[in-house]
């Protein structure tokens, strides 16, 4: 069952070939057997998942199912989930159970998707290797001696290992795109404003955006369709209708022009990566697209600019973890400064 795509699983559920409860149990069983070696999950929510699966089965029987009804998936542990711990990969939030759901959590729940649990990540989404989690590193399922990428490494690894057909992630400076590439799955950072960030723990607010992981463009399109949409609770949410992202999947690539920024292929490019990109371009050419070299002359400034914006916003956003309203608090504070300083200092230690 685990080798089927999300679309195939949805068809199987709707045809009554298996129930969501059976599918959910099969996925949970795989997580139990295989995740010890990967560490892609921080929290597995068996009971809640099985309850959600039974509710999805009732919807399926009543003929009220959508494309995600009864489909197991996993959330990056950055999305608030009422009643289930949301740690953000940090000791600071090891004891934090959110008192409300993120909009993305609520939307996928409303679609009938079955959350198996929360996936591992670099602490507070800062990292590109998934080695900085309080809950230990995640391993790449293709070769457990290598990293899965980060910060959404657990979500990427869980999909790559066929523990779940899809998962959610967030991307500030590559945290979906890079682990998707390193784990060989499909990942997408949508346009800023497309998916609500309400209830998604903030890192750098002008860059953070949620997105899906899946095993194909079609599966990712279904996830994106369910996650996207205007939300008045996120002041940066864009009020535009959600398109049918599957609509263009069968379109021909004839006439499509792909610009290849020459600056991306400079010094330090690994020969294996270059060959993989060239092989992909060859596929696109065969499908009728043309590839043109272009120049983005300011490319070298992107990372320096990121290193101004992201740390400044991160410093601001993470100041809320102060031991007063939620999260870790140091014992026996002498005064308020001591409370802040030691809560943050101890919370940071691995």
């Amino acid at each position, binding site marked *: 069952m685990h080798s089927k795509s999300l679309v195939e699983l949805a068809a199987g559920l709707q045809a009554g070939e298996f129930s969501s409860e059976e599918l959910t149990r099969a996925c949970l069983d795989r997580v139990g057997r295989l995740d010890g070696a990967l560490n892609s999950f921080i929290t597995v929510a068996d009971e809640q998942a099985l309850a959600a699966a039974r509710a999805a089965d009732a919807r399926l029987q009543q003929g009220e199912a959508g494309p995600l009804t009864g489909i197991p998936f996993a959330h990056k542990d950055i999305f608030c989930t009422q009643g289930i711990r949301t740690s953000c990969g940090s000791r600071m939030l090891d004891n934090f159970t959110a008192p409300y759901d993120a909009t993305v959590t609520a939307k996928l729940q409303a679609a009938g998707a079955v959350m198996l649990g929360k996936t591992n990540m670099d602490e507070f989404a800062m990292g590109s290797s998934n080695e900085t989690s309080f809950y230990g590193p995640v391993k790449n399922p293709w070769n457990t001696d290598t990293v899965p990428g980060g910060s959404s490494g657990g979500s990427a690894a869980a999909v790559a290992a066929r523990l779940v057909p899809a998962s959610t992630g967030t991307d500030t400076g590559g945290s979906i795109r890079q682990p998707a590439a390193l784990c060989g799955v499909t990942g997408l950072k949508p346009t800023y404003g497309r998916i609500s960030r309400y209830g998604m723990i903030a890192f750098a607010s002008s860059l953070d955006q949620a997105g899906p992981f899946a095993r194909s463009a079609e599966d990712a399109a279904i996830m994106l369709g369910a996650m996207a949409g205007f939300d008045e609770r996120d002041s940066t949410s864009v009020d535009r209708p959600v398109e049918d992202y599957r609509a263009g999947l069968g379109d021909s690539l004839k006439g499509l022009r792909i610009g290849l920024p020459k600056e991306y292929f400079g010094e330090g490019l690994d020969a294996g990566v270059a060959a993989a990109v060239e092989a992909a371009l060859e596929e696109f050419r065969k499908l009728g697209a043309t590839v043109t070299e272009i120049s983005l002359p300011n490319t070298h*400034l992107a990372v320096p600019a990121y290193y*101004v914006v992201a740390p400044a916003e991160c*410093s601001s956003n993470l100041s809320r973890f102060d031991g007063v*309203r*939620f999260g870790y608090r140091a014992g026996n*504070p*002498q005064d308020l400064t001591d409370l802040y300083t030691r809560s943050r200092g*101890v919370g940071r230690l691995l």
Partner: protein
Amino acid sequence: MSLEASDVEKIAHLARLGIDADDIPEYTRNLSAILAFVEQLNAVDTAGVEPLAHPLEATQRLRPDTVTEVNDRENFQHVAPQTEAGLYLVPKVIE
């Protein structure tokens, strides 16, 4: 621009962030390297470049100034380390 160990101590104090003295030399080196790295932005001529606030030209949305939320204090405070009578408790601030 290069930082001194005392700068790092001062920044940590201002951020109310407890750090180990042993880590200060490494933080000083790393922060100095990042500052040197971002310095290359100073060389860019941005005269005539219009600031981009949003990729979709979106503007800040406003709403009527009315109450939209109900009081949910108990729910939010049950995750707090220490509360009393609906208030968050911290060490005494004013004598």
